[in-house]
């Protein structure tokens, strides 16, 4: 999974991929956002300094979820009116991606899902609305206007900043989570479950002074 090396076209620093198929990465040194074409990298922008979110997760953290090993290879950071959250890009041993959402120590592991039926449009959703998916009834808990503020590491797509975007968070009565991401049309659906860090058998966590 590791070992693919190239260099930053902006500053020349060595870039080592944790995930060989990464489409986008960010140079750790000059914060250039780099989109990859085979081994050639093109600078498409510069990421702001990713605010040091207070997570024990970091690039390179390894864990296990539903009997599959994963490694954290990238991250998207979002900000909304009253705070921010991270979506950690996890590459699983079966070569799929998952996203570990990390909001103030609330964690949800989710995966992209194909909606059973078309999702409600962004100007037609409000908390309390319901939609079915996978035999469960999801209830919209909140709609958050958020913007993408930074990136780190490797992503499976070239992320284009798009200003304030609605995110609708839903929960099922069985306790599962879903997020409708309105950054694209049609909207994207992610379905997952709340997790506690201790369930994920994490290794290579960040350390905290005094803890």
């Amino acid at each position, binding site marked *: 999974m590791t070992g693919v090396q190239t260099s930053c076209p902006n500053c020349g620093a060595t870039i080592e991929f944790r995930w060989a198929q990464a489409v986008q990465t960010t140079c750790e040194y000059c914060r250039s956002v780099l989109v990859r074409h085979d081994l050639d990298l093109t600078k498409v922008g510069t990421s702001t300094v990713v605010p040091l979110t207070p997570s024990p997760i970091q690039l390179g953290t390894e864990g296990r979820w539903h009997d599959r090993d994963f490694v954290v290879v990238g991250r998207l950071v979002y900000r909304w009116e009253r705070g921010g959250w991270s979506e950690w890009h996890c590459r699983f041993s079966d070569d799929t991606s998952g996203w570990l959402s990390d909001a103030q120590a609330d964690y949800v592991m989710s995966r992209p899902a194909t909606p059973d039926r078309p999702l409600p449009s962004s100007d037609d959703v409000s908390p309390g609305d319901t939609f079915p998916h996978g035999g469960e009834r999801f209830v919209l808990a909140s709609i958050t206007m958020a913007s993408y503020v930074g990136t780190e590491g490797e992503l499976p797509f070239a992320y284009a900043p798009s200003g304030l975007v609605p995110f609708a968070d839903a929960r099922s009565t069985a306790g599962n989570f879903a997020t409708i991401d309105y950054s694209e049309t049609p909207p994207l659906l992610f379905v997952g479950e709340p997790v506690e860090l201790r369930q994920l058998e994490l290794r290579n966590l960040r350390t905290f*002074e005094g803890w």
Partner: protein
Amino acid sequence: MTSVQARGLNCPNCGAAIQLRSFQFAASVVCDSCLATLDASDANVAVLQTFEKTMARARPLIPLGSRGTWKGDPWDVIGFQVRQITVDGINYRWQEYLLFNPFRGFRYLSEYDGHWNDIIAVRGIPEGGSVSGHPTATWRDTTFKLFQTSSATTVFALGEFPWMLNVGDVVTVKDHVAPPFLLSAEETDEEVTWSLGEYVSGERIRAAFKVTEPFPSARGTFANQPNPLAGTPARYWQAFVMLAVALLVLVGLRLGTAGGRLASAVDGVFHPGVATDKAPFVTDPFTLAGPTSNVVITSSATVDGSWLFVGMTLVNDSTGQVIDVGREVSYYHGVDEGESWSEGSRSDDVRLGAVPAGRWFMRIELDGPDAGRDIDWRIEVRRDQPGLIWWFAAFVLLIVPPVIVSLRSAAFETTRWAESDFAPASSDDSDDSSSSDSDD
């Protein structure tokens, strides 16, 4: 990578140094010196709110910065707020402590009148419903009954919060109870968040966070305080049923064996029309042993459409005490207009109470019809026959404990619900009568 460093800032309002305990988790922080609320989420620390003196500075029972081991993990106390609800013009205030662990996130402790709850966020949506008309919320197979809907205002805060706290923030709180648990929904215009509290003793918390000063002792009954007799009435009634069955079996056995010890028996034949059979005679002396107790005399006779009168005088051989008793054994039966009937019995029991021990004999005098068939008779004297009254008393004694615990358990539930939106309209609590119709 290097360890995440602790972070400090200076209050832009008063200049005091503030050490952040929750690293970059802190979104807002209340300055300990000037009580201004600050935006801790960016480097330029803006003052969100200066302190308006609406209440005296509150002192947390657990000092901010205390670290304790709770439910197996270390936790720091990083935030403190006082929240208030107003019911019928009366303000009720409780305290909330925010606990933090960088690997475990957040949890809360709340205190009201010495009652404590350990609270975690519920990551899901409980299902609403109702049971016998009472609104409920069900979460993970437990059904909680709605206790109270109120409007809670943050009236004082200290320390750090992972959200933009403002003094004056108002949320609608719906508390649902299934003791020892409390399921609460906090609603704002934007979202509904659910939390699950568990009633815990203040002493456990005090020990966990090594607080030296005593906590206030609990007063009254709290919404989700476990009933100290929870489940006890059921256990008592189970025990009662088992003991009552055992008692019935014993009664049956005792009655089945006719009970008591045979002290004397005498029998003979009464020949109607034979004058000598009506002459009195005395029995052989017999001994009544043990302490003073009852004597049961059973007179039986093969009467059939006739009668036999048995006159008996118990005489104490040594003291001369005399006890007189006369009994009639009679039995009649027949068929009248196709219906069979019977009257009387071939056997008669008489109980004599408090007969002292000693040597006794009996003087017996029989009387009967002057014609008819011969009557075989037998008289038995039994000592210490158990009386049904004592069995009944035992039954009453058995039923007392379950009745008492049931009443006490119900009384506890009454005091619990008296504080809710669902207090029964009681005659001695007239100020409660309006609580259910105005909770805005």
